[in-house]
């Protein structure tokens, strides 16, 4: 398990309490945080929606299957899935190896871009995981 100081939390992203991250510039990418992938352990399967599917903020849009469990993924903001990361089909371990880069999950078209302001910044998210650890 990573020590709190080893958990990477990029300043440029915003975070939901369920450990998804979202980028603030288009394409609005969504993934899971370094903390989440470390807790879940090796990801063995990523279930993602079809492009075009729309979800409300907080709604389940897919799941991450790790060696330990099957965990739901929640969209951080209202939006429509514009693209999914096809590489995860063959290489789900990218979520572990590079959670903010090659391990991204979906790109979304935001219905209400102002919702991004409701998400946590890096400092707030670090405090949030401090309360969960």
């Amino acid at each position: 398990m990573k020590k709190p100081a080893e958990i990477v939390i990029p300043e440029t992203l915003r975070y939901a309490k369920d450990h998804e991250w979202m980028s603030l510039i288009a394409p609005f990418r969504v993934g899971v945080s370094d903390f989440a992938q470390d807790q879940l352990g090796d990801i063995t399967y990523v279930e993602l929606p079809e492009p075009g599917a729309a979800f409300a903020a907080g709604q389940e849009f897919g799941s991450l299957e790790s060696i330990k469990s099957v965990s739901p993924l929640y969209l951080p903001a209202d939006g429509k899935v514009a693209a999914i990361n096809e590489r995860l089909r063959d290489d789900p371990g990218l979520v572990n190896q590079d959670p903010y880069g090659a391990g991204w999950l979906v790109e979304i078209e935001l219905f209400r871009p102002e919702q991004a302001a409701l998400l946590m910044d890096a400092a707030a998210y670090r405090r949030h995981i401090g309360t969960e650890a």
Partner: protein
Amino acid sequence: MPDASTLRRTALYARHAALGANLAAFAGWEMPLWYRAGAVREHLAVIQSAGLFDTSHMDVFFASGPGAKPLLDYAFTRDLSRIRPGRALYGAFLDRDGHTVDDAILYPLGPDRFAVVVNAGMGPVVTAHLKGLPDAGGVDLREPDRRLGKLDLQGPASPAILWEAVDGADRLFADMPYFSFAGDFDLEAGGIRLRNGTPILLSRTGYTGEIGFEIFLPLDRMDETWDSLSRFGAESGLLPCGLAARDSLRTGALLPLSHQDIGPWPYVNHPWLFALPLKKDGSFSFTKDFMGASALHPEGNPHTFPFAGFDQRRVDPRGAKVLLNGEEMGDVLTIVSDMAIGRIDDVIVSLADPNRPEGWAPRGLSCGFVRVKRRLESGTKLVLQDARRKIEVEIVKSIRPNRTATRRLP
């Protein structure tokens, strides 16, 4: 989840933390789930080279005295009239209803002296169960004065690693088949030592389906022995392994987890009938009378079968339905992904198969055990359904091929 402050820690806790282990509560102990390499690489290491597990959370107790053998013969599902010195036996302790109290490995140490290795926290439960049986009066049942440590070295490279570590390997290995052991639980008296002087009991057993050893040793020698086995194994790719890899390895090897795959229902109609004292005439009758025997009817009791899926996807076993053509059949006892296997033209192939196609890499298959209301033929397709998804699986006779557990020592 129990409060972390009440969890017990093994002698290697500091090693686990230093190795970056992801720790979790298991049966009252704070145990490694996986280390930095992750559970998938740990699982594959045991298939392809070797893995080292801290299994000191397991319990040991002793039964001794003139009444010990008759008591165990009545309480344990194996026929002790067939005991051979130096050979351990896997079996189960059942209650009056034929339900499983726990599974165990029994080590005969002398005509009136036995050691029994049971699951974590189960020593007091099983000894209390035994003390309640008729004729337990004259039998001395006790846990060790000082707890023992236990390390499992598993995988095809483990004989070569142990060869370096143990004193007199050539003599020992010459006659050490599957389920044999050398030494004594009175470790000093047993006369088997590692080259670093550590007295051990060496058992050719394990819980992974791969060739390997369980090593019992004094707690104060755990750190040094863990380090030296890690050093001897470094070149062959040995990895420290946690409980997650142990669970996926044992499932692929068709081994049950006590209190999950066997438990409070009759110990019958399952893949582990070798652990019952069945007569070889096909009559489903027993070679001895034993506790729980009268409840073990093949008719009227649920059936446990191994299954394998067609890809690595799983369902959440809690509350998952098992469906046969839409009919609810029972429940999922265990479901894991064995990441060393995949299917080629529907046939399960292991990464350990020497004839696997060049460049082929398995993506893993879901597998486990279902408990259903009637007998099913192997090849029967079932649907497992949880709140999120449905997956198709089939009843199988075996899960991971090319296992090495029973292989002769080189």
